[in-house]
């Protein structure tokens, strides 16, 4: 299996995701944002980081990169695209996913472990997760407060596009377990065709017990 990781100026989780993919024997090519051709791949990953310094709006400038035209086309033909953190922000800015990620409601960067509940385990990204599986995965962002219009939310629900929601250790989805003000505690969504996933938490940071956890592993295994 082959993955392409898109590197934007200011991406900084590109190496982390490469290490994770390779740990699961997924061959990884790093693709610079100015490239005009996507290598043949089974998966495209938009990594976390601060593309363009998070200036203007997170992900806005990256979404206009040359390579994004290719990524959009690739997604349109059913190719799998996975955006983590800044990658999720880029996907919404590029229109591949609905909604937008606003500033965290407390206006502070938050880096800590949170729990997320698997709402849809029928996607290519989550098929190895048991139903309602609760994962402990860290977040690290300034802007993870998911927003979408009423109609968009309805359609996310109708099409089973909500993949992860923030919850507590027992799986309760409440205001208390919402770290950033995200609408409906949304932590990750897929597009209608279920081939594009965006999520704020970083599964690539929990694949090694020495570094604090292994709950991210099942997501990568699902991709295989």
């Amino acid at each position, binding site marked *: 299996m082959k993955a392409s990781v898109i590197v934007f*100026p*200011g991406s*900084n989780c590109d*190496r982390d995701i490469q290490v994770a993919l390779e740990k699961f024997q997924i061959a990884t090519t790093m693709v610079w944002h100015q490239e005009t051709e996507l290598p043949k791949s089974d998966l495209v990953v938009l990594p976390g*980081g601060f593309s363009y*310094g998070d200036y203007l709006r997170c992900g806005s400038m990256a979404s206009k990169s040359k390579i994004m035209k290719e990524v959009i086309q690739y997604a349109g033909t059913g190719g799998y695209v996975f955006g983590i953190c800044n990658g999720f922000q880029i996907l919404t800015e590029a229109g591949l996913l609905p909604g937008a990620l606003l500033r965290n409601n407390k206006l502070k960067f938050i880096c800590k472990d949170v729990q997320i509940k698997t709402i849809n385990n029928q996607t290519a990204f989550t098929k190895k997760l048991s139903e309602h599986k609760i994962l402990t995965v860290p977040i*690290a962002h300034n802007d993870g407060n998911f927003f979408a219009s009423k109609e968009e939310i309805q359609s996310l629900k109708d099409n089973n596009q909500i993949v992860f929601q923030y919850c507590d250790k027992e799986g309760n989805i409440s205001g208390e377990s919402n770290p950033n003000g995200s609408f409906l505690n949304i932590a990750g969504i897929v597009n209608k065709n279920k081939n594009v996933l965006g999520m704020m938490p970083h599964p690539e940071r929990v694949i090694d017990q020495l570094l604090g956890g292994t709950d991210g592993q099942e997501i990568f295994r699902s991709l295989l």
Partner: protein
Amino acid sequence: MEQTTVDQAKQLGLTESEFDKIKELIGRIPNFTELGIFSAMWNEHCSYKSSRVWLSKLPTKNKYVVQGPGENAGVIDIGDDDVAIFKIESHNHPSYIEPYQGAATGVGGILRDVFTMGARPIANLNSIRFGKPEHPKTKHLLNGVVSGIAGYGNCMGIPTVGGEVEFDECYDGNILVNAMNIGLAKKNKVFLSIASGVGNPVIYVGSKTGRDGIHGASMASQEFDDNSEAKKPTVQVGDPFAEKLLLEACLELMKTDTIISIQDMGAAGLTSSSVEMASKGKLGIEIDLNKVPCRETEMQPFELMLSESQERMLIVLKEGKEKEAEKIFKKWDLDFSVIGKMTNSKNLVLHFNKEVVCDIPISSLADEAPKYNREWISTPLPEEINIDKKLNDLDIKDCLIKLLTHPNQSNKSWVWEQYDHMVMGDTIQKPGGDAAVVRVHGTNKAIAATVDCTPRYCFAHPHTGGMQAVCETYRNLSAVGAEPRAITNCLNFGNPEKKEIMGQFVEVIKGMSEACLALDYPVISGNVSLYNETNGIGIKPTPTIGGVGLIQDSNKSTTISIKATGNLLLIIGETKGHIHQSALCYDILHIKKGPPPTINLAEEKKNSLFVRNLINKKIAQSVHDISDGGIALTIAEMCMSGKIGANITTNLIDAERIKFLFGEDQARYVVEVRSADYDNVVKLAKEQEVSLLQIGSTKAENLTIDDMKITVEDMLTLNNKWFHNYNSN
């Protein structure tokens, strides 16, 4: 060319005798640009004129040191051809003026110091000190500084893994922001700032130059323009995005064979970077100022040379390699300009609009800079006072709760959750323990790092305080199982022109030196910040020490979290009950008299080795060094971290018990071991003549000390609330 006056020299911060010395050195009266350059190179920050004499006494070598002080950062060997490069630096004054940008650019500056040497930065740490929480400025400063450190480090994608936060009224008018960075490189790929090769091109890369932080320019602005409003010195604004690009571009260039030397533009910008490179290479340098990329119009030579715009580097390339280098910087969207060349004139020659606007010997700026042996007097060791009466009446639970809820001992997660401490995927121990542990990427070894200082000890007795700061880092590293290798230091003091302050400085250095020598734990880099004074009141002497150690096997490290119930808790090191200058006396009882705890360097070394051995043999289940708050707070922290309780028995009463529980004798650790290992540990301790005391065992839910009982849950709630409450409105 226009000539300058002694008044202008004074306005730029030079003294009359320094102005005379300049005239003597160059054999004429300097012009305005030249005077500005002298003022920048001869100020305390660049010349270390008050401190150089004493700094030279610090031990700087052991078998691991590859590069000691004198370069942008120090370098130590960590085996397998790998080196760790690190340094700490202050950004106190700018952070007080504009906390967000001041702290952010402080982080930016230290990062450049490290990657300029060829290292990829892997860990940030910070030591931040504020005035009392009630002071009207404190909350704003705390919030600004923390988000500034976060803003820069997070955007760069370098984890911020440790640090310290303290509140004390001595910092009301002078906060301290000390930022440290550690990077990794290969031993044969370390880049230095020594220029060589007459004719080699001098390259400017990074962001454009603006009028940022031009000190003194406003005072002298009548000299070059009436339109002084537009020339006001401005605060430097950091651009972490530009720095990230600069980092990647520099590391990419370093893979090619093109660089002779490289130096970041830090304090005094283009002036100090060009002079330092030339001075170290014993060469001259010629720069065409019209080639400097500018952000603003009509910038004058004085401004171009003194601007402190961020995210810029100066590089001497091998001749003919310009195109190859330019391609890389263009790829990363950065400015690139050949601005001059190395010469054999031994002078700094600046051209501007086809005129020579500066021509002065490099040696007059560097080697001949003033050096003062300032007067100093020592601080005597304060006498013990008897406070037993006050201690007799104290309730243990009340003391513990007051410590747990005190801002200085409260859980700092409000701070470090704003820092990305996991990015780069190698953080083994995040903030919250004794030292951060970060794996060396792709290997099984790890770097441990910590920053520490106890200013109340330093103020009471600078000599002891200097030793203690070094020892505390040594202990924090030992507690995670790392072998301490070297330190970096940031010496924050008041006005050195005062005898007492200079005395504090001298004695702290003496104390540090003794500790470094005894522990074979030398200083490889550092920074001095003087004149931290407002209205004649100086801060407490604050020598922040950044310690770095090595863990050979990442699986053989331990944390402060109690691991299981039914284990035994041992105190390693002797407990005498030294209560003076303890957190309890100082912060809770407000008794500020008396001597700090004594340092016994032989004990430090022996106990550290003993603890590291227990960790290496996987006997130690958890370890925490005993510092602020003594045995009681140390064990409470271990309980909170592991969410497991403990049962402690003292067999003491009244003042003696308080001293035992809250005293801050040095060289001590709490170690958790399985009961099956106990006899073996006792035997080892006997053999190595280490003092060991079993004071209790671990159990579920509660911490009990004699007849006192508190739930771990309650302690967590108490310990977690201060920062959140303080910042919630």
